[in-house]
């Protein structure tokens, strides 16, 4: 059911309650608000409720989402009656289900208090003496307990230091002839899904939120790490270890309470991405791996949604926009065989300065805003490459590849991406050899020198030579491929599996894992 809704008919609590049932929940708490027969000393006969629905629903949804996040409850919903109500009728219902009763009670209390305080609903009281009067429920109440308790304003508009509230001010962008009031309304109606809240994703999320895009979705299953902070300044040291999507959502809501920020706190996969993307106008890919980029590409092509891709390597970046048009190339038109993660570059971190993904991310935000605003922008499809060290920008025209079938694109998972049986765990190389596998070390010569004592290995063939043509390895053999940390060996094993090798495995965790297990 919807998190917050209005009903003109009497409230059907049994149906609402049923929608909150969840096998992981051990408790359910609900609140019912009824029309009573007196208010401030006057006898009331009946009530009329009216609301500014668009605004009210958005604010109501925000309150329910806050309660879910704040108290960690499973499900929550609120329904408010509008229209004429007689004495004793139910005006509002709140329900919450949670693993434990404490959170359920707390979240339920939070929702009703905040709804009474923040949602724009007007109440007309008809008194027994024939008189009547409008009462604006929004903000007519005392400041809610939650606001007082936590000293933060959960209101629609933020309070500044002088205590006055401020509506978002978009005047500087509305002043652009290409934007205007109409453009701002387009942004407000717009929705963007951002895959990855890292170096690229942070500026994308910040600028789309600040610009007043109506709904912004964050998809990221990672936690904040200390090594992220230099290039992801939406997070601070206190966030290390916390879920990235959760922290980002909190910060963005504070940045612009006008925007509906949605959380998808898991890694994008073939089983969730289409369901997510269906609900947005376009997707911005800020992921850091090929598997996700091609997944996003396929989802965008199959659903006919624009997509903005970027990636960085040290001081360089690439930017490509997909538009769902007949003649427009997708990522696969350019790279018919999706590159495997780990094969380009090497295990060692390439290194990056935060300003590089920030630059590319800002460009992605710009592309996304142009698409929402309907600004022509790109007339011809291209891959843009940026060298921020030398300050060179190349626009390489790309064309639709006729062999790349867009019409029947699906999200069928590439079976070779399932890593389960490709990775094998061993505590010693002797054990691996005992199971009849030929050990193949694919580290480059310089690494073997740098890594120290040589392990007992059968064959040394650097990765670069193997990818080119694996002639050194007869396909009928049984191999365990080994590298420093198990990233390249896994990529190679998967690659060989798709090229006629049936029994090639990767040593999970690489030689480092063996050393650690000793």
């Amino acid at each position, binding site marked *: 059911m919807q998190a917050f809704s209005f009903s003109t008919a009497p409230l059907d609590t049994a149906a609402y309650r049923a929608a909150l049932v969840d096998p992981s929940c051990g408790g359910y708490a609900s609140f019912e608000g009824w029309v009573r027969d007196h208010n401030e000393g006057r006898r009331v006969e009946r009530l009329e409720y009216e609301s500014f629905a668009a605004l009210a629903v958005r604010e109501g949804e925000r309150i329910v989402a806050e309660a879910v996040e704040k108290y960690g409850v499973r499900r929550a919903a609120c329904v408010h009656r509008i229209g004429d109500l007689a004495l004793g009728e139910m005006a509002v219902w709140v329900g919450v289900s949670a693993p434990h009763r404490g959170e359920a009670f707390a979240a339920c209390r939070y929702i009703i208090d905040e709804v009474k305080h923040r949602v724009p609903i007007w109440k007309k009281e008809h008194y027994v003496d024939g008189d009547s009067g409008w009462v604006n429920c929004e903000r007519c109440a005392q400041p809610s307990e939650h606001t007082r308790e936590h000293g933060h304003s959960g209101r629609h508009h933020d309070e500044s230091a002088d205590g006055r509230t401020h509506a978002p001010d978009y005047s500087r962008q509305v002043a652009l002839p290409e934007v205007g009031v109409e453009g701002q309304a387009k942004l407000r109606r717009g929705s963007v899904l951002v895959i990855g809240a890292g170096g690229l994703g942070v500026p994308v999320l910040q600028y789309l939120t600040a610009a007043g895009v109506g709904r912004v979705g964050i998809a990221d299953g990672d936690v904040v790490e200390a090594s992220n902070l230099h290039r992801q300044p939406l997070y601070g040291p206190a966030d290390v270890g916390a879920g990235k999507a959760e922290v980002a959502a909190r910060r963005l809501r504070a940045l612009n309470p006008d925007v509906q920020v949605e959380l998808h706190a898991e890694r994008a996969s073939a089983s969730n991405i289409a369901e997510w993307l269906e609900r947005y106008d376009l997707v911005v890919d800020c992921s850091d791996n090929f598997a996700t980029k091609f997944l996003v590409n396929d989802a965008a092509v199959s659903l006919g949604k624009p997509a903005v891709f970027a990636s960085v390597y040290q001081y360089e970046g690439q930017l490509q926009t997909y538009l769902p048009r007949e003649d427009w190339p997708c990522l696969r038109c350019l790279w018919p065989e999706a590159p495997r993660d780990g094969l380009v570059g090497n295990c060692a971190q390439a290194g990056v300065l935060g300003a590089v993904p920030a630059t590319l991310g800002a460009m992605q935000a710009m592309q996304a805003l142009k698409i929402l605003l309907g600004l022509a922008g790109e007339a011809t499809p291209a891959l843009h490459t940026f060298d921020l060290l030398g300050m060179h920008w190349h626009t*390489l025209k790309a064309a639709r590849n006729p062999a790349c079938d867009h019409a029947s694109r699906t999200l069928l998972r590439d079976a070779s991406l399932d890593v389960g049986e490709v990775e094998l765990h061993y505590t010693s190389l002797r054990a691996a050899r005992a199971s009849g596998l030929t050990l193949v070390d694919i580290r480059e010569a310089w690494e073997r020198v740098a890594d120290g004592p040589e392990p007992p290995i059968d064959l040394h063939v650097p990765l670069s030579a193997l990818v080119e043509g694996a002639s050194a390895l007869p396909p009928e053999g049984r191999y365990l491929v080994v590298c420093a940390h198990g990233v390249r060996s896994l990529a190679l094993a998967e690659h060989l599996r798709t090229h006629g090798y049936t029994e090639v495995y990767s040593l999970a965790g690489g030689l480092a894992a063996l050393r650690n297990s000793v």
Partner: protein
Amino acid sequence: MKRIHLQYFAVLREQAGRSEETLDTSAANPADLYDEVRTVHGFTLPRAMLRVAVNDEFRDWNASLASGDRVVFIPPVAGG
């Protein structure tokens, strides 16, 4: 012999130790040209993983080359 202006990106730039160079070559197409510079610079990436652009347009590996062409070899990058 034709004179080709070459540009390198990402891991190719690292391995070549430069971002561009001008080369006199007899290579008939980008494929031959890559094989040639691969030997010189010790590039580890096989051609199958790259794309090539000639005069700012993506082209086939067997497109013909002319003197004065600007050639860019582009490896896919995924960092974010």
